[in-house]
């Protein structure tokens, strides 16, 4: 036991002495969360809008007022001819241009329909889609109010309700993904680098001849990172709750337990990587390209798994973060319990066990 | 008096309140083989870095190959050769590729490089191995090649930092044959070593202790002055009382 404590203490010295490592370990989770929470959002708070009104009647005036009164749209220019549209977009000053056809009010009165055109900047399809959606809903609102006032019969209308995330806040989406990413980085990348570093500097030679058993070396290496990763989980969940108001609707204990399981999976991956290479550089490349990229791209963090092509969906199954994401989202946002999540939990358990066994077997008690 | 290739006056380097090199003054003449000895931590490496223009001195003055070490570091780098045991050539390139690369660095034109390359491989008897990766060659050959590459741009002065570490005694002496050859051609050689018998091969030797030059003369004269039978004895006698061995 004393040996073990000595080993862990030494490992903490390494982490604390290297300011850059310490900064990455503790600064990154906070920085990432703030970055995703504040800077990178899917909501758009300010749509710079230009109006080209070829009708100039009461209805278009009212509709324009309605659009700008919602707060989302900001009047950025009043255009006088169709020629100006292209220029306005090219200069980047405009997100959207709304065009009312000539005789708008008359046509609406006469035929019940009138044309308005919503032009957006297609070079950014995401923003485009969201902006168009916003505009449509404002116009729909306007028409409903108008027909109600006129006493016309009200038709059936679908009213969308977003459950669990009524405001559709993107921070709800990012927090679970971010947790997966940070845990993968700290646990897998850091352990694989710290083990391969000992191989590179030759200290592993000394550890091997010291009669420590492989399992003792591995556990001694892993425990500090387990603790650190756990601190990171607490940081992210805490920050998400207090700064961004992301709730934890399910059991916090279950969330932490599942996170611990995911950390174990990531750690065993890290050890596995360090058992197949002797160089820090290779370990880093494998961790970044082989673990971090898929965690970001294929886990459902940014792109939904269901909308991926089938082969990628299949690949996503072997990515631990995919399962962890499901678990975290379910616990934090839906308040789900283990009864729902037992399958995902089992998958993670199986993965940890697999990599742990493989790396203990691969871990050589000799050089090469 | 021969031309002074290196001349320093009270050259000093301080790191914080630690004085690594403490007012050293010495001169090296053209064509001389100058041994620069000292215990680990005596300040040798720092002094070498200043003389090769890699580190700015704290005070004092010096000229190397006729250039000022404060203002003309670029000119110094162009006019000196440098070879160290740690970094010399690229192991994953062939002898020819190494020569071509370093020739290019020193701005030699292609025709000159090709001509020098052939001549060098011929002199070193490496013609057959010219296209073998260096990693496959014995250490002794690599060091000889590294030395020749350091002389590729025909510098007046060459710095050799422990050039013979780790090689066997025969190869070590063959390496010294090359050093003598270069010196006979007028190249000034500034060399550090931990082999004390190599100190005897130098024309003059300086011994640094605690940042200062404790002794500087020909090996014969030094041994007579300090009453030592060998350079090893002399070195231990001078360096033993050093206070900074832990640095």
């Amino acid at each position, binding site marked *: 036991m004393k040996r073990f404590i000595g080993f862990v203490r030494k490992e903490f010295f390494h982490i604390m002495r290297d300011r850059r490592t310490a900064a990455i370990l503790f600064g990154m989770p906070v920085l990432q969360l703030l970055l995703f929470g504040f800077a990178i959002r899917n909501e758009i708070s300010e749509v710079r809008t230009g109006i080209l009104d070829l009708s100039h009647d009461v209805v278009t005036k009212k509709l324009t007022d309605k659009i700008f009164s919602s707060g989302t749209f900001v009047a950025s220019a009043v255009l006088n001819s169709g020629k100006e549209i292209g220029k306005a977009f090219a200069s980047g000053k405009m997100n959207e241009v709304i065009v009312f056809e000539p005789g708008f009010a008359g046509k609406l009165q006469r035929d019940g329909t009138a044309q308005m055109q919503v032009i957006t900047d297609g070079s950014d399809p995401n923003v485009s889609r969201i902006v168009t959606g916003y505009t449509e809903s404002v116009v729909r609102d306007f028409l409903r109010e108008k027909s109600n006032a006129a006493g016309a019969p009200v038709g059936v209308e679908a009213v969308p309700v977003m459950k669990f995330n009524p405001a559709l806040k993107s921070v709800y989406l990012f927090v679970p993904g971010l947790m997966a990413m940070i845990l993968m980085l700290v646990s897998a990348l850091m352990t694989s680098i710290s083990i391969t570093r000992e191989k590179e500097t030759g200290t592993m030679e000394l550890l091997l001849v010291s009669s420590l058993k492989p399992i003792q070396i591995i556990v001694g290496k892993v425990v500090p990172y387990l603790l650190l990763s756990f601190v990171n989980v607490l940081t992210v969940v805490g920050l998400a709750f207090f700064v961004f108001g992301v709730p934890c609707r399910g059991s916090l204990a279950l969330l932490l337990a599942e996170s611990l399981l995911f950390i174990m999976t990531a750690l065993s991956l890290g050890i596995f990587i360090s058992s197949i290479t002797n160089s820090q550089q290779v370990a880093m490349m494998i961790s970044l390209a082989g673990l971090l990229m898929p965690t970001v791209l294929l886990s459902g963090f940014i792109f939904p798994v269901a909308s991926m092509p089938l082969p990628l969906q299949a690949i996503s199954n072997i990515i631990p973060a995919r399962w962890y994401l499901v678990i975290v989202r379910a616990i934090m946002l839906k308040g789900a319990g283990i009864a729902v999540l037992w399958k995902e939990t089992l998958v993670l358990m199986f993965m940890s066990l697999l990599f742990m066994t493989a790396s203990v077997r691969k871990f050589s008690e000799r050089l090469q | 008096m021969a031309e002074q290739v290196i001349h320093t006056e009270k050259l000093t380097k301080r790191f914080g309140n630690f004085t690594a090199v403490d007012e050293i003054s010495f001169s090296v003449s053209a064509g001389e083989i100058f041994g620069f000895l000292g215990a680990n931590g005596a300040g040798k490496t720092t002094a070498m870095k200043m003389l090769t223009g890699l580190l700015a001195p704290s005070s004092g003055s010096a000229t190397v190959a006729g250039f000022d070490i404060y203002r003309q570091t670029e000119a110094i780098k162009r006019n000196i050769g440098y070879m160290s045991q740690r970094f010399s050539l690229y192991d994953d390139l062939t002898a020819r590729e190494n020569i071509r690369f370093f020739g290019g660095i020193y701005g030699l034109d292609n025709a000159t490089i090709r001509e020098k390359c052939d001549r060098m491989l011929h002199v070193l008897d490496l013609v057959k191995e010219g296209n073998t990766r260096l990693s496959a060659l014995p250490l002794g050959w690599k060091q000889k090649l590294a030395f020749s590459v350091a002389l590729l741009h025909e510098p007046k002065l060459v710095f050799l930092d422990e050039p013979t*570490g780790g090689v066997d005694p025969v190869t070590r002496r063959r390496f010294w044959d090359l050093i003598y050859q270069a010196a006979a051609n007028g190249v000034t050689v500034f060399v550090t070593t931990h082999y004390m018998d190599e100190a005897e091969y130098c024309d003059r030797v300086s011994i640094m202790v605690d940042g200062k030059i404790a002794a500087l003369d020909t090996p014969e004269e030094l041994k007579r002055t300090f009453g030592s039978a060998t350079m*090893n004895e002399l070195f231990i006698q001078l360096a033993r009382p050093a206070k900074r061995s*832990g640095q």
Partner: protein
Amino acid sequence: MTQAVTTEGLSKRFGKLEALRQITFSVPEAELFGLIGADGAGKTTLFRILATLLLPDNGKASLLGLDTVASYRQIRTRIGYMPGRFSLYQDLSVEENLDFFATVFGTTVKENHELIREIYDQLEPFRKRRAGQLSGGMKQKLALCCALVHRPELLLLDEPTTGVDAVSRQEFWQMLGRLKQQGITILVSTPYMDEASLCDRVAFMQDGRIMAIDTPTGITRLFTKPLFAVRALDKHRLINELRAFGYASSAYAFGNAVHYTDLRLSPEPQELAAWLKSRGFDDVEVQRIEPGIEDTFMALTESSRPEQEPSDG
């Protein structure tokens, strides 16, 4: 006498390279045994096999009566190993390194203080300094201390003095001498020939082979040719002239002299001196001397691989 180390026909190859070829030797208990050879001679591979870190392709070795392959666990607790490059934690202090290696072996620095006291006293002033900031000599002392902290019966030291200045080397060897007196068997490798004379017995290694094993004085008997020390002021020209002499076998710089051997069995020093005078050396001095360890090593390497260095052929 009990043997602390015995090997029999050890061979190891890495791809095309034959790192060790049929290494057979033994070291009795409490002996200071030196392996002398340049980089690439196979010293490190031999040490790693003995430290149970590598498996030999052929042959076997036993340490303290235990087989290096079958009983590697027991061996590991009873030997101290110092790898060739500095392999301590550079970001830990002197004290932290020592404490760490002590705990890893399930002991404390205090418990074995007697054994390491002498070395530790020299490290004491730098207790709080990071190992990476120590000088070469101090690093080696710290590494030795760490290798000794669990009171091993056998020390394997792979080139402990490479790159270390002459003063620290001398101190290091004095420590080894005292450790030997405490009954610890020491196997040490070095590229410095002058250190060979400090060993009880030495083995010369070259290209994965052991060329000779004997006591330092015994081994010089392998040098059979008459040897002359020639002195003159212009050493470089002297070497060239000696090599040009009709009967010259070899001429190498040795300290302030040139060591010369002749092709004939009993050459006359006067004849050589006269010839050199005729070549313009007025101050020449020729003297018959006994060969040293370095002379012997050089003669043996020359004869064992004439084909490998055609450059001076």
